[in-house]
């Protein structure tokens, strides 16, 4: 270290640094196997909430969440977002109806699961699904396909009838991949909500709104902004954070000391 750096930063003591890092999470020493700290536990227990109580969330809590969002990292600090907050029940139901109708339109074209195998309608819709998957492979992944099908059959909701919806609009001129920055600002908002005892659900199906000039106008979405997702917010029904969940382990490549290991 240069003399200047030593003067300003002090001696570089790795142990000290680790202790300082621990302080942020409220612990002083971290050994392997130590219990999850409060921050880690919050991340592990956050769930997508799809059943909300009717009660509205106080406006100051929503502002508090947005404030945590404002300090999210972004590429080149470009902060390529603009927030729209909807707390009007009727409007939320109209947004729901619009997105349900969009799902029905798509399902009408491609949802072969509602027809018996071997029928003409089945063959036609299956062919259409494959054709559309050529240009929109990510939207035609089986999971969103299933979601659209369930919504069209009234077996699943789009926004889940929350008292508040946040639409983080993306400035399409953002640096690099602005979708990443939108994901991070959303994560800040979602985690702040979780820490306040609120529940949230990301809603990718909300992007149908972006294709409607009427909805873009009603929600004050202008060029260069796009609706890419929504975040539903409210008080969760039941105790959805009682248990942590099981999820699949992932192959991880570990490169150290000139060796390569695959761990799960």
């Amino acid at each position: 270290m240069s003399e200047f750096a030593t003067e300003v930063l002090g001696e570089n003591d790795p142990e000290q640094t680790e202790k300082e890092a621990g302080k942020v999470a409220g612990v002083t020493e971290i050994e392997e196997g130590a219990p999850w700290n409060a921050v880690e536990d919050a991340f592990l227990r956050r769930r997508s909430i799809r059943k909300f109580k009717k009660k509205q969330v106080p406006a100051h809590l929503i502002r508090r969440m947005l404030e945590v969002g404002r300090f999210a990292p972004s590429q080149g600090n470009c902060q390529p977002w603009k927030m729209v907050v909807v707390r009007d029940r009727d409007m939320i139901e109209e947004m729901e109806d619009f997105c349900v109708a969009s799902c029905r339109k798509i399902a009408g074209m491609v949802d072969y699961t509602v027809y018996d195998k071997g029928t003409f309608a089945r063959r036609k819709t299956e062919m259409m699904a494959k054709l559309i998957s050529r240009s929109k492979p990510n939207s035609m992944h089986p999971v969103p396909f299933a979601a659209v099908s369930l919504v069209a059959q009234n077996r699943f909701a789009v926004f889940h009838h929350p008292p508040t919806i946040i639409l983080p609009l993306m400035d399409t001129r953002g640096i690099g991949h602005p979708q990443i920055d939108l994901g991070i600002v959303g994560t800040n908002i979602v985690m702040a909500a979780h820490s306040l005892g609120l529940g949230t659900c990301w809603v990718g199906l909300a992007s149908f709104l972006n294709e409607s000039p009427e909805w873009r106008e009603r929600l004050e979405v202008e060029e260069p902004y796009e609706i890419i997702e929504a975040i539903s917010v409210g008080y969760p029904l039941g105790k959805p954070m009682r248990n942590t969940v099981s999820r699949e382990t992932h192959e991880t490549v570990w490169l150290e000391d000139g060796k390569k290991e695959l761990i799960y």
Partner: protein
Amino acid sequence: MGLLTKKEMKQTPIVDDANDARYGVVEIDLDKCNGCRICTLICPSNVLELFGEKHNRRARIKEGLVMCLACDNCHAICDRDAISIVSGYDFAGRYKQLGRGAPSQPRLEWGKPAAGGYTGTVPQCPAAPEMDGRHD
């Protein structure tokens, strides 16, 4: 992302064909379940329902096409620890899941089973010929 090739297009799995799509699998312990219903209300895939006489209800998986996401949110909310996923989802062809191991609860140490976790399995969707060999 450009246009898929015709070969890739043909690999789009048919979501209601068991050869192409395996969904998450949940196990319900009927001795523990008290039929409180909450899991059936919050399941994002709408695959759970109650059955049985009044005062003796239990949760079960619906008949027909069951597209469980393996999110385990049913387990997260269950007061009785009566339900949990035992396997994730997988699709043949283009959307085959890559590099996955068995599901686990959050692990404080890797390589050891997590406390309170169920022993899971890796789903085995038959691979499309072009994309075989994932689980070698």
